[in-house]
C-alpha cells in the first residue's frame, strides 16, 4: 500500500489539479445547490467537500478547461446529496414533515390567513422539497443556477427535450401544491 501511495504522489505534481482555483470558483454555487436539495446547510458542506474530493481523485489533465467540468460538479454534487438523503432515510421523513408543516397546514383551510413574504417564501421552498428529487434538480439548476438546457442535460443525463418536460411538470405540480396549500388563491 505504501508503494501505491508513493506512486500516486509521484504522479500528482505533473497533472495536479488547480484545486484552489476550482474551489473558489464553484464552492458558492455548489453549496447553495446542495443546501437547497438537502434543506440543510451543514450537510451541504459535507456534500460539497466530497464532491471536490471526488474531483481530485478522478482528475484528468485538461479537465479544467473543459466546459463539462461545471456539469460534472453539479452531477456529482446532486448524486452525493441524494446519497446523503438516502443514507439518512430522509426522503421519506422529509415528505411526512412537509405534509405536517404547521405553516402550511394552518393556512390550508383558511384562505384569509395572510402570509408575510418570508412565510410565503418558506412555504414555497418547503413545497418545492415535496417534489421528486429529479424535479427539484431541474428546477434549481434552471432557475437558481441558471444553467443552460444543454448543461442541465449533461448533468442529469436526460435529453434537452426531456429536461424541458420535467421542468414544466415540476412547475405545474408546484403550482397545484401552492393552490392546495392556499399560498396562492386561484
Amino acid at each position: 500500500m505504501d508503494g501505491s501511495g508513493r506512486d500516486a504522489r509521484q504522479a500528482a505534481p505533473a497533472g495536479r489539479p488547480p484545486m484552489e482555483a476550482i474551489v473558489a470558483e464553484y464552492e458558492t454555487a455548489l453549496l447553495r445547490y446542495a443546501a437547497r436539495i438537502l434543506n440543510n446547510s451543514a450537510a451541504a458542506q459535507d456534500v460539497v467537500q466530497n464532491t471536490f474530493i471526488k474531483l481530485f481523485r478522478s482528475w484528468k489533465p485538461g479537465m479544467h478547461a473543459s466546459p463539462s467540468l461545471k456539469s460534472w460538479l453539479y452531477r456529482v454534487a446532486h448524486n452525493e446529496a441524494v446519497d446523503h438523503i438516502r443514507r439518512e432515510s430522509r426522503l421519506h421523513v422529509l415528505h411526512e414533515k412537509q405534509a405536517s408543516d404547521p405553516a402550511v397546514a394552518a393556512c390550508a383551510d383558511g384562505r384569509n390567513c395572510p402570509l408575510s413574504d418570508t412565510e410565503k417564501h418558506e412555504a414555497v421552498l418547503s413545497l418545492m422539497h415535496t417534489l421528486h428529487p429529479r424535479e427539484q434538480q431541474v428546477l434549481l439548476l434552471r432557475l437558481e443556477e441558471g444553467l443552460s438546457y444543454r448543461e442541465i442535460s449533461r448533468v442529469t443525463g436526460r435529453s434537452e427535450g426531456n429536461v424541458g418536460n420535467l421542468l414544466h411538470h415540476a412547475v405545474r405540480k408546484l403550482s397545484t401544491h401552492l393552490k392546495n396549500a392556499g399560498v396562492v388563491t386561484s
Partner: protein
Amino acid sequence: MNCAASKALLTLYVLKDLDASTEATVRTHLETCPDCRAALQEIESTLGLLRDALAAPTHISAQLGSAQRARVLEPRASQGPIVVSGLSWFTQHHRALAAAAAAVVVVGVIALIMPATQSARRVALGVDVMMEESLSELDEVDYFAQDKGRSERESPVEEDFEKLAFGEAPEARYKSSLAPKKKPSRSFFRQRSGESGVEVSAAAGRSVRVVSAPVLKPTPPPVEPAPVIPAPVTAPAHTEHAWFVDSDSPDSASPVGGKPSVAKPSSPAAMPVLRPASEVSRLSSATEFDSVTMTKSPMIVSGALANRTAGRREAALRTYGGGSEAAGDSDGDDAVGMDVYYATPSVKELGDQVVPILGDAPMIGRKFKGKDVGGEAGEADPFADVESIEAVTSYDYLARTGETIELEEGKSASVRGQSVVAGPDALLLGKLVKEEQVTDLRSGLKRDEKRRFDLSEKMEREADLGQDLKRFEKRDRLLEVLREEEPADEGELRWRFTAYGVNPFVVTRKEAFSTFGIDVDTASYTLTRSMMRQGALPPAEAVRTEEFVNAFDYDHVAPTHRTFRIYTELAPSPFGRGLQMLKIGVKGRRVGREEQRPAVLTFLVDTSGSMNAPERLGLVQKSLRLLVENLGPHDQVAVIQYDSHARLLLEHTPASHKDVILKAINRMQCSGSTNLEEGMNEAYRLAAEAFIGGAENRVLLLSDGVANLGSIAAEDILNKVAAYRKQGIFCSVFGVGSGSYDDTMLETLANKGDGVYTFLDSEEQARRVFVDDLAATLNTIASDVKIQVEFNPNIVRRYRQLGYENRRLKKEDFRNDAVDAGEVGSGQSVTALYELDLLPMLLAKTRIELPPRRLATVRVRYRRIDTGRVEEIERAVWPHECLPVFEKASNGFRLAATVAEFAEILRGSPHARGSRYKDVTDVLRPVALELHLDKRVQELLQMVTAAESTPRGQ
C-alpha cells in the same frame, strides 16, 4: 398547434427558453385559447413566487468551512493514501506480465478483426480503384499480348513503358484513333502463353495493377489443330498479338498488328497472330505490379460450352483456340483444350490488390458509362456481388452461370472491373482476332440473351419513366386532364390512369436503402373487383400492387402502448424461383373510444349529370346514411353538393340531429356540369369556419372524378388542399362509378390532403368503409409515415419491392420531416413485400464465422397526431428467421404473396412473366381453406379463378 401541445410548452415560454418560431406559434395560440392563457398565468405566478423564494436571503453559507476546505485542498493528508485500483496496482508492479497480457489481447483482437477488414478493404479498393482511376479510362483500352519465349521479353517489367513502340505499319494505320488519346489513359493488357502456363498482365493507365504469374498447364490439348484465320501466315518462333478496342464503336476490335500470322508455341502450325514479332510493350517499373495466379479450369470449360450448338462452338473455338495448342475442331470434345481461365482462390498472392481484367471495351463502356442510366439491371450480371477474386470458385462460377452460361458469357466479360472473374471472356479478350469474329461470336452467343436483355432494358426504361412520372408527370397529367373539356356525352367511357412502371431489382451493393411513404389506399383492388364483375380485366396501369396487398387483413395484432408495431416474415417466394420474400407489416394502434376525437366532417358530393345513376349518386347517398347512423353525438356533419355551382345543403349539424342530416342527404339531385373548383372552395371555407382544434377536421369528397377545370384552377385546388392539410383539415376521397372514372386526379387529391382514397363499388364496400373501418377512416393516429428498409449487401444480393412505385422516396428524405408521406388511421395496417435474392450459402461458408448479421433493418418514422412529435422505430430481420419452405409461412404471408402475384400478373409486370393465374390459385386455395371465414379471401379466390377467362378491358 393544439392546446395540449402548447400547454406543455408554456413553462419554457415563460422562461423564454423556446426558439423563435416555436415561441411565435405559442404566442399566436395563446391569443386564441383562453384556457391556455389561464394556465400561463398560473405558471407565471408560480415561477415568480419560486424565484422570489430562491432569491430571498438565506442562511446558506457561501464558502466551505475551514475543516472541509482543508480536506479538499490537501486531500492526501486527511484522506489517507489514495487507493489505487487493483488493475493499476497490477500493472505497476508486474509490468512485464501486464505487457505480455496486453500483447495476447491485441493479437487475439487482430486475429478476429483481420478477415473482416481485409474483405472490406478489398471491396473498397475494388470499387474505388476502378471508379477513380480506371473507369473513366475504360473507354480507351488497348490490349497487347505476346507469346512467351521472346528472348528480349524475358524481363518485360523492367523495360520502359514510355518506349512503347509499335510496328511502323500499325502505328500509321491507327494513328488517327490513337492520336487523340493520351497515353496514361490507355489500359494495357498483355498475355504470354506457353506450355508452362499463361501469363496475363494488364495495365490501366497510370495505375498498373494486374500482373502475371505462372499458371497451370492447360488441360488436354485439342485433337486436331485447325486454322483460325482464313489467311494464315507462317509464324515466327515467337509471336505476339496485340489489338486495340475502340470504345466508340461497339463490337469493333481492330487489330493493331500488321499482318496476321499463325503460330503455336509447340507446333508452329495455325495460330492467329495479328502482327509479326515486334516490340509491343514495355512496362515502366516492376514495383507497380502485383501478382495474381490464373489457372485453367476444365470445369469451367465444360460448363461454359455445354450448351453450345455446333455453330456457336465453332465460333467460340475459333476465338479461343489459338491461345493454347491449336484451334479446336467444331464437333470434337475439344472444348477442354481452350484457354479458359477462372480466378483461383489465392489470397496470399492476391494480397488486397484487386485485379481488374479489363473486359471488352464496349461492354464496359456501356455498363459503366451507363451507370447513371441503367445501373439497376441486376439481372444482367451474375457476378454483381463478387467482391474479390477469391470469392469465385469454379463451383461457384458454374453455380452462378450454370444454366445460362451462354447468355451470361458476354456479360462476365465486363466483370465490372472490381473483380477478376476471368471467365471465358478474359480470354475472349486475349484472343480476339478479327472484328467479324467478335461480332459473330457476340451475335451467336447473345441471340438468346438479347431477348432477355431487351426485356430488362425495357423494364429499366419503364422504371425510369416511372420515376419521372412520379416527379413531374403526375401533376402535369392531372393538369392536362383537368384542362380538357368535359365531354358532352358524359356517359362515354373514359379511363384516367397513370402508369408508374414496375420496380426493378436493385443490387444491394449499389443501393442498400429502400425508402417509401406508406399507402393505405385500397381503391385499385376495389376498382378491379368492380370491373371484373362487369366482365373485363382492368387496364394494366389501373393495378397498383400495394393497394391490392393492403386491401387484405393479415391478422397483425395492434399494439396497445406504442403507436406502431412492425411485423416481419421471411420465407421462400412461391413464384420467384430461388428468391426469398420478405413481408413487412406495420400495424397501428387502435384508438380507444374515450380517445376518439370528435369529427367535424364536411361532405362534398358531386351531383353533376355524370353522377346520375344508382351506382353513383344512389350509392353515395346510401354510404352517407350509413355513416351518419354510426357517428357519435359530438360529431358534426355538413353537406355541400356541387354541379355547375356549389350549393350548401346543410351547415355543420351535430350528428344527434340525424333526421335533419338524412333529409339533406335525400335532397341531392343531379344535373349540370362539374365545377369542382367552386365545390372545393366552398367546402374548405365551411370546414375552416367550423374548425375545432383537436378534433378530426376533414373534407370528404365523393365523386366520379370527372371535372372540367382550367389548369390554373386545378393547381389552385391542389395548393389549397395542401395548405389546409398543414392547418389540420384533411381531405379524403371516395370514388364511385367505373367508366368515366378519373383515378389519377382523385388519388392526387387524397395524397395532397393526407387522406385515404377509397373506391366504392357496392353497398357492401360502403359498409366496410363507413361502418367497419369508421374508426380508421376518422381517427388518424400518425401522419407522414415513412418506411425505410436497409438491406445488408453481404447477405442480400439484390431486392425488388412489389408495388409502391409512386410512393418511392429518396433515401435522405426518410429523416426529412418536411417531406410529406401518407397517414395511417386507428388500427390500420400497412403491408409491403420485397423479393430478395440472397447470396448463396456456399459463399457464406467460406468465410470465417462472424456473429450473426442482420439481413435487413426496417425503420418506420412517423408524426404522432396526438402529440405532434416525430418518432422512429425499427426492427431487425435476421437471416435465421427465414423459414425453410413457403408452406411453413403463416397464412397471412401466403395470402399476401398470392395477392401480390395476382396484381403483378394483372399489371403485366415483367417479373411475373410466365406466371399464370392457375399458379396463383394453386397457392391460394389452401390459404382460402384455412381462412374460410374471411369473405374477402373467398372473393379473391373467385376473382383469380375467373381472371383466366376474362378478357382484358380497354
